[in-house]
C-alpha cells in the first residue's frame, strides 16, 4: 500500500491529529491555561473544515473496507460545518466554572464521535460500519453525562448507553443474518444475495431497520430521545439531534441503496409505515412540550420522518434531497439550539413560558429564533421550504401522493407548535422577561453562520445543482 492511498482517509486523519492535540494539551497544561485553548481549538477546527473542501482523489483501501467518493466527501463536509457551529456555540458554556476543568475531554470525546461517523460513512463492509457506529455512539453517552453534578445529565448518559446497547444488539442480530445468508460482510457481496427475498432475509432487514431507526430516532424506536435530549447539556443535545442524526441518515440511505437496492420494493413498505408514525407521533408529542430542549427533540423526531420521504423514492434525486435537507436542517436546528443555548447559559431559563416577551428585551435573538423556526416549519423563502420541497418532489416522482398528503398535514401541524414559541416571544407579555444580554463572540459567530446558511442555501440554486451532480456520479 502506498502512502498516497492512505490520504484517502484525510478527513479522519486530520480529526485524529486534532483529538491528539487536545489530549496532549490536557496533559501538559496547568490549571487555568485550559481556557485559552478554546479559541485555538476552534481555529484549528476551522482550518480542518477548510481542508475538507480541498480536492481529493477517490478510491478504496483496506480491501474495500474503506470507500471514498464524492458523495462521502460531501457528507463529511456537511458534518464538518455542523460540528464547527456546535463547537462555537459551546464555547461560552464550557467556560463556566463547573465545566472548565474537563473541557478538553469534551473536545476529545466530541472529535472521537466525529471520527466514528466519518468511518461509518466511508465504510465498505458491515464491520467497518459497525465499528464506526459504536465509536460514534459511546463517547456521546459520556458527553451526555458531562455535567456530572446534575442528576438529569447522569440519567441521560445512562439511558443513552443502555438503550444503544440494546439497539446495537438488534442491529448486530440483523447483520449476522445477512452474513448467514451471504457468507460475507462486504456490502457488494451481500448485495448480490439480496435478490430473492425469503422470511429470514426479511427478519434481518427489519432488525437492521430497527437498529438504524434507533439512531435516527424514528417512532417507535425513539423513546430514549426525549429524556436524553432534555438531560444532556445543550451543546450535546444539539450535536445529537443534528450531527449524529444526519450522519446516521446518510449511511442508512447509502446502505439501503447499495446493499438492499434490489429489495427496495420491500423496504419501501417499512419506510412508509415508519414515516407516517414518526411524523405524526413526533408532532403530537412536540405540541405538548414546555421545555424547549424537549420541544426541539420531538420536533427533530418529526423532521426525521420527513427525511424518510427522500429515502422512499430509492433513486438519486431522493439521495440528493436527503443530503440537501440535512444541510438545511443543520443550519436551521443549530440556529434554534444556538438561541436556546445562549438564553440558557445566561439565565438558565429553558421553558416556552419563560420566553414570553423575549422580543422586547432581546430582539435580535428572537428574530433569529423566528427565522430558524420558520425554516424548520418550511415556510418560503427560507431554506427549510426548499429542503421539504425537494423531499416532497422526490416522493412525488415515486408516486407516493398519500404519503405526501400526510406529510403536508404534518408540516401544517408543526407550524402550529413552532408558532406557539414565536407567539410567546413576540406577543405574550411578561413581567420578568429574560433581561437583555450579549453572548460571547463564538456564540454570536455560530448563530450568524447558521442564519447565513438558512438564507444562502435557500436562495442559491447552485448548491442543489452541485450536490445533484456529485450524487449522479455516485
Amino acid at each position: 500500500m502506498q502512502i498516497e492511498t492512505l490520504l484517502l482517509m484525510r478527513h479522519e486523519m486530520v480529526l485524529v491529529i486534532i483529538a491528539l492535540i487536545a489530549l496532549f494539551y490536557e496533559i501538559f497544561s496547568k490549571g487555568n491555561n485550559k481556557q485559552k485553548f478554546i479559541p485555538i481549538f476552534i481555529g484549528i477546527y476551522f482550518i480542518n473544515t477548510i481542508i475538507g473542501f480541498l480536492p481529493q482523489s477517490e478510491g478504496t483501501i483496506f480491501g474495500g473496507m474503506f470507500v471514498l467518493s464524492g458523495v462521502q466527501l460531501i457528507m463529511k463536509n456537511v458534518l464538518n460545518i455542523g460540528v464547527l457551529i456546535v463547537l462555537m456555540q459551546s464555547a461560552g458554556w464550557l467556560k463556566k466554572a463547573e465545566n472548565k476543568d474537563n473541557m478538553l475531554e469534551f473536545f476529545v470525546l466530541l472529535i472521537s464521535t466525529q471520527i466514528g461517523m466519518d468511518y461509518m460513512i466511508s465504510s465498505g463492509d458491515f464491520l467497518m460500519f459497525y465499528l464506526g457506529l459504536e465509536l460514534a455512539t459511546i463517547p456521546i453517552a459520556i458527553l451526555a453525562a458531562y455535567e456530572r453534578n446534575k442528576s438529569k445529565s447522569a440519567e441521560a448518559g445512562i439511558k443513552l448507553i443502555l438503550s444503544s446497547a440494546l439497539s446495537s444488539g438488534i442491529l448486530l442480530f440483523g447483520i449476522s443474518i445477512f452474513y448467514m445468508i451471504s457468507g460475507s460482510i462486504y456490502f457488494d457481496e451481500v448485495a448480490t444475495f439480496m435478490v430473492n427475498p425469503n422470511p429470514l432475509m426479511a427478519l434481518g432487514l427489519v432488525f437492521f431497520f430497527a437498529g438504524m431507526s434507533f439512531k435516527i430516532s424514528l417512532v417507535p424506536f425513539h423513546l430514549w430521545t426525549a429524556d436524553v435530549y432534555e438531560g444532556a447539556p445543550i451543546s450535546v443535545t444539539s450535536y445529537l439531534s443534528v450531527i449524529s442524526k444526519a450522519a446516521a441518515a446518510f449511511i442508512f440511505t447509502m446502505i439501503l441503496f447499495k446493499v438492499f437496492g434490489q429489495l427496495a420494493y420491500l423496504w419501501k413498505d417499512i419506510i412508509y409505515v415508519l414515516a407516517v408514525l414518526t411524523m405524526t407521533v413526533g408532532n403530537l408529542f412536540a405540541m405538548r412540550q414546555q421545555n424547549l430542549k424537549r420541544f426541539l427533540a420531538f420536533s427533530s423526531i418529526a423532521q426525521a420522518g420527513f427525511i424518510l420521504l427522500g429515502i422512499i423514492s430509492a433513486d438519486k434525486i431522493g439521495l440528493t434531497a436527503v443530503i440537501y435537507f440535512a444541510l438545511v436542517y443543520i443550519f436551521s436546528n443549530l440556529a434554534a439550539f444556538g438561541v436556546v443555548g445562549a438564553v440558557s447559559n445566561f439565565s438558565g431559563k429553558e421553558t416556552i413560558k419563560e420566553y414570553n416577551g423575549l422580543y422586547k428585551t432581546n430582539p435580535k435573538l428572537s428574530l433569529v429564533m423566528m427565522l430558524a423556526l420558520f425554516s424548520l416549519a418550511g415556510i418560503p423563502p427560507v431554506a427549510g421550504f426548499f429542503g421539504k420541497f425537494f423531499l416532497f418532489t422526490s416522493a412525488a416522482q415515486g408516486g407516493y401522493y398519500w404519503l405526501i398528503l400526510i406529510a403536508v398535514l404534518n408540516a401544517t401541524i408543526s407550524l402550529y407548535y413552532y408558532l406557539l414559541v414565536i407567539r410567546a416571544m413576540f406577543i405574550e407579555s411578561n413581567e420578568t422577561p429574560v433581561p437583555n444580554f450579549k453572548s460571547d463572540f463564538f456564540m454570536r459567530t455560530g448563530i450568524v453562520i447558521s442564519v447565513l446558511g438558512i438564507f444562502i442555501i435557500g436562495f442559491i440554486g447552485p448548491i442543489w445543482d452541485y450536490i445533484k451532480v456529485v450524487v449522479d456520479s455516485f
Partner: protein
Amino acid sequence: MNFTYTILIPIIPFIIFLFIGLMNSKIKPSLAASLGTGGMLISFILSYYTAFLYFFKSVKVDGAYQKIIAFNAEWLHFTDKLHIDMGVLLDPISVMMLIVVSTISLMVHIYSIGYMKGDDGFNRFYSFLSLFSFSMFGLVVATNIFQMYVFWELVGVSSFLLIGYYYQKPSAVAASKKAFIVTRFADMFFLIGILVLSFVTDTFDFITLTDTTGSAITQGGSILFMGMSTMTWALILIFIGGAGKSAMFPVHIWLPDAMEGPTPVSALIHAATMVVAGVYLVARLFPIFEISAPDALMVVAYVGAFSSLFAAIIATTQFDIKRVLAYSTMSQIGYMITALGVSGYGGHEGVGYMASMFHLFTHAMFKALLFLGAGAVIHAVHTNLMTEMGGLRKYLPITHITFLLACLTIAGVPPFSGFFSKDEILVAAYHHDKVIYFIQMFVAGLTAFYMFRLYFRIFWNTEPHYHHTPHEAPFSMTFPLMFLAFAAVFSGFIPFEKLVTSDGLPLDLHTEWEVAIPAISVGLIGIIIAFVFYKKESSIPDKISQNLRFFYRWAFNKFYIDELYMFVTHKIIFNGVSRPIAWFDRHVVDGTMTGIGKATEFTAKSIKGFQSGQVQKYGFVFVSSAILLAIAFIFYWFY
C-alpha cells in the same frame, strides 16, 4: 443604428424614485424637486434624441419604419418557448409615446415645484411621480405583452398612490381605492386574455404577435368557443383591461373620483398618459385585431363611440371644473378608441389608426394644458366649483390666454391641432360607419359647448366676492402652461401621416372638406350657444334644465351608474354571495379546523403516558416493536 441607450429612459426615473423614496424626509424638498426634474429632463432629452434618430436617421425597409428591439434581457425562463423578457421595443407608436410621456411628465415636474410648494409630503410626491414615469416608460417600450402587463400594474399602483396622496382626506382614500379596485377588476380580464392569447399563439412577443404574415395571426382564429373564435375572445378580454385603464363605459366610474388627487397628477396620469394606455394597447395589437378578430374591433369601435357620447353629456351638467375635464378626457379617449375601431390595416384604410395616434398626441398636450390651467385657477381661488368663480381673466392673464387656446383646440377650431386630429377621426368614421360618424359629430358639438361653458364660467360671467384677491401663479407654473399652449397650437402641423401609420408606410392625405366643414360648424355652434348662455349671468340654462328636468337630473347624477354598481356590489354580491361564503367559512371551514385541532390535542394528551421515563420500559417497547414489525411485515410480504 444602436439604440441600447434607450434603456436609460426608464431607468433614470427609477433610480431617482429609489433615492428620493429611501431618503424621503432626510433630504430637502428643493433637492428632491431638482433631482426629479433633472432626471426627467435627461429622459426628456433622450426621448427627443431617440425620436429624431428613429424618424429621420434610421434605416427604412421599402420605405416603411421598422420595429427595433433596442434592448432585451430574459427575465424568467420557463421553457425554450415560454419565457418572459424585459426590453425596449422601438416603433413609431412607442417612440411617439416616449415623446408624449416625457414631455408631459417634465412639464408636470416643473409645474409641481410651484403647485406643491410647502406641502408636507413634497418629497413623497416627487418620488411617486418618478415611480409613475418609470412605469409608464416601461409600459410604452414593452417588447412583449407580459412586460406590458407588469408595467400596466405598476402604473396602476402609482396612480393609486398619487390619487390617495392626501391620505388624511377620506374622500381621497375612497377615490384611490375605487380607482385601484375598478382597474384591477378590469385587469383580471386582461390577464385572462393574455393567457388565452399566448395559449393560442404560443408567444408573448409583440413582434411575433403582430407579424401580419406570421402564424400567430393566420392560425389564431381557428378554434371556436361559444360562437366566436378564441382569438376574438382573447382580444375582447384584453380590451376590457384596456377599457378599465382608459375609463371606457362601463368601467369608467373611477376616473371622475380620481380627481381627488393633486391637479398635476390629474394632468399627468388621468389626462395625458396612463389613461391612454388602453388606446396604446389596442394600437399595439392592432394588426391582430384587424386581421384575425374583426368582431372584437367592432366591439372596440362601439364601446368608444358610446363612451364618448355618454361622457360628453355628463360633462355638460357638472359644476366641479376638474370633473368636467375628467369626463371630457373620457369622451376624447372614446374618440381615439373609436378611431381605432373603424380603422383598417395598411394604406389608406389605416387612416383611423393614424388619426387615433395623432389625436392621442394632440389630446395629451391640450388636455394636460387644460388640467394645469385648472390647477392654476384652483390654486388662485381655492375651490373646484365653477359656480364660485367668474371674471378671472383680469387676475390670471397667462392662465386665461392659455386656457382659451386649449379650449379652441379641443373644440376643433382650425388651425389649432385639435382640428386636424379630430378631422382625421371623423374622416375615418365617415368612410367606415355612418352611425359612428353622426355620434362623433354630435359629440364634437357637445365638446365645444361644455368646454366654452367652462371657459366662460371661469373667466367671464359675474365675479363673486373673493376672500383674497386671486393672483397669477408663479413662473414655475406658468412656464409649463405656455410651453404646452405652444405645443397644443402647433402640433397639428406635424406630418403624422408620414410618421405614424398602421403599417409604417407614409400616407398621402388631404383635407376632406365635406367632413371638415360640418365639423367646424358644429364646433362653432357649440361655442356660440355657450357664449349666449354663460358669457353673462343668464337664466336660459336654468330654464332648459327645468324643462328637461328628468333627463337633466339623470345626466347630472352620471346616469346613476355609480349607484348601479353600489347596488350590485353591496346588495347583490355582498348579501347574495359574500355573506353565505363568510358563514360557510366561519362555521364549516373554521369549525372543521377547530375540530381537527381539538382532536389532535386530545390524541397528544392521551398518548403522553407512553413516555414514562423508565428506561426498562423503553427497552421493552423497542424490542417488542422490532419483533412485531418483523412478524407483521413477514406476513404481509410472504403470506
